[in-house]
């Protein structure tokens, strides 16, 4: 299975600090880890999961073995990085952040009455980056329309990313 994985700027995992083997012109070495969701195993994203885990660098990852499927991720006992997704660069990260901020404003100010307290947190959050702005937009959608709107907003964000990243 081909999936995606966000890593820190230095190529380490966001939550474990694991340094992934990378190669400039070939797939990285296979990494094995028994599956225990959120504790062990190779955790990765399907395209629909990307907005929940947005980070600095995005890689395509090949997963092998019996793959466990969870609500916002997949977990495999074996995986290797295939390539860095170059389209996820500073420019696209900023564009995604701005898209989420604009959408959050639209949702907050389009309500009747306008959700001014929610709107006020949007611009100060922009420097914190894409993960926070994606969450803010989805939370404002949820505040306005209910829980299903949170998931719908995440799906909207995923579609935006899939299109721009060419996934």
């Amino acid at each position, binding site marked *: 299975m081909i999936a995606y994985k966000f890593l820190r700027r230095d190529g380490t995992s*966001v*939550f474990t600090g694991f340094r992934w083997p990378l190669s400039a012109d070939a797939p990285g070495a296979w990494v094995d880890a028994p599956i225990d*969701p*959120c*504790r062990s195993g190779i955790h990765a994203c399907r395209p629909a999961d990307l907005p*929940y*885990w*947005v*980070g600095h660098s995005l890689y395509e990852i090949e997963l092998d073995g019996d793959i466990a499927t*969870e*609500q*916002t*991720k997949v977990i495999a006992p074996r995986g290797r990085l295939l390539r860095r997704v170059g389209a996820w660069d500073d420019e696209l990260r900023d564009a995604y952040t701005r898209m989420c901020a604009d959408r959050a404003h639209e949702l907050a100010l389009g309500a009747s009455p306008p959700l001014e307290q929610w709107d006020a947190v949007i611009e100060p959050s922009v420097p*914190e*980056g894409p*993960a*926070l702005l*994606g*969450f803010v937009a*989805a*939370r404002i959608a*949820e505040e306005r329309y209910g*829980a*299903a*709107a*949170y*998931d719908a907003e995440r799906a909207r964000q995923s579609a935006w990313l899939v299109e721009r990243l060419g996934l």
Partner: protein
Amino acid sequence: MAEHISCQEVIELVTDYLERALPSEEASLFEQHINFCDGCEWYLDQMRATVAAVGRIEEEEVPPETRDKLLTAFRHWKRT
């Protein structure tokens, strides 16, 4: 159905997270929050550092009066 955890809940759950005692779905929500919240990520890093430092202290290394103060504090904490 949307679910999230707040910064307050991160603080309440951080020990269970570090001890890998959270159920998978709750751990996933915890990590989603950490992914976008710099303040909670910093708090988690601080807790990891604290556990790494304090986890090396043996019971015999704690001075008796400090041990008594800690036991008193924890007894009081359990009653409230």
